[in-house]
C-alpha cells in the first residue's frame, strides 16, 4: 500500500515537471522554423508563376515584351500578398 502511494506522489511530481517544460517550450518549437522556411519560397513561387503566365500569353498573342512585364509585376504583388497573409496568420497564433 505504501508503495502505491509513493508511486502516485511521484507521478504527480513528474506531471508537474512536464507541464512546466511544455510551457517553457511554447513558441520556440520546430513549427516556427517551418513557417520561416515556408515564407521564403512563397514570394519566389508567385513571381515564377506570374512570369510564366506572361510568357505563355505573349507567345499566344504575339505581343512579345508587353505582357511578360505586366505579369511579372503582378506576380511580385501576389508574392508580397502571400507573404503578408502568412505573416498575419503567424501573428494570430
Amino acid at each position, binding site marked *: 500500500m505504501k508503495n502505491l502511494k509513493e508511486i502516485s506522489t511521484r507521478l504527480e511530481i513528474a506531471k508537474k515537471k512536464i507541464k512546466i517544460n511544455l510551457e517553457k517550450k511554447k513558441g520556440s518549437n*520546430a*513549427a516556427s*522554423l*517551418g513557417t520561416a*522556411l*515556408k515564407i521564403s*519560397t*512563397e514570394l*519566389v*513561387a*508567385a513571381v*515564377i*508563376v*506570374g512570369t510564366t*503566365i506572361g510568357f505563355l500569353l505573349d507567345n499566344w498573342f504575339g505581343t512579345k515584351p508587353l505582357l511578360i512585364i505586366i*505579369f511579372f509585376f*503582378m*506576380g511580385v*504583388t*501576389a*508574392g508580397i*500578398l*502571400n507573404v503578408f*497573409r502568412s505573416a498575419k496568420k503567424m501573428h494570430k497564433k
Partner: protein
Amino acid sequence: MALNPMHQFEVYRIGPEINLGNINLSFTNASLFMLLSAITIIIFLFLGTKKKLLIPSKIQVITEMSYSFVAKMISDTAGSKAKPFFPFIFTLFMFVLFCNMIGMLPYSFTVTSHIIVTLVLAVVVFIGVTIIGFIKHGIKYLELFIPKGVPIVLLPLIVIIEIISYLSRPVSLSVRLFANMMAGHTMLKVFGGFVISLGLLGGWLPLGFSVALTGLEILVAFLQAYVFAILTCIYLNDAINLHH
C-alpha cells in the same frame, strides 16, 4: 566522378528498357527508392500494429506517435471537418518523410531532390483540394478569388493577382521541398569532397562540418515533410471552410 557533388542526383535505368509508345517506363534507381520507402512504411506500420499491447513496445510507441502527430496537426489547422482526409495526409507525410530519411543513408538516392517527384505530389494536392472545394461549395468556391470590400474599379486587377497567388501554391510547395533536399545533399557532398582533397592534415575541419551538417539535414528532412503536410492541411482548410 566521385568528387562531383551533382553525381548523386543522376537517374539511371535498372534492368531492361520498357517503352510504352513514346513514354519511357523503365525501372530506374528513383523508382527503386520510392518502392523501398513505401515498403519500409508498410513494414514499419505492420510491425507497430501487429501486437496491440497495453504497455506498448518501442515500435508501437513510434507508430502511435506518428498517428497522433498527424491527427493533431489536422485538427489544429483544418478543424474536425477535415478528419475524413486523414488517410491521405498521413500517407503523404509518411511518404515524404521516409523518402527524405532514406536519402540520408550513405550510398542511397534522395527521391525528393528531383523537382518532378515533388511537383507531382504538389499538383495532386492542388487538384484534389480544388475539386474538394468545388464539391463542397459549388460555384461559390470562386469567391476565394474576390476579397471582401474591394472597389469595383480594382476588381479585375485583384482577381488576376488572386489567381496568380492561388496558382503559385503547388509551385511553392514543390520548390520548397526540392530545393531544401537538393541544396542540403549537395552541401554534404561538397564538404565530403573537401575532406578527401585536403587529406590527413587539413581535412578535420570539413569533417566536423560534415557531421554537423548531417544532423542539420536530418532536422530539415523531418521539417520539410512536416511543412509539406501542414500546408496541405491549410489548403484543405481553405477549401472546406472557405475563408482566408
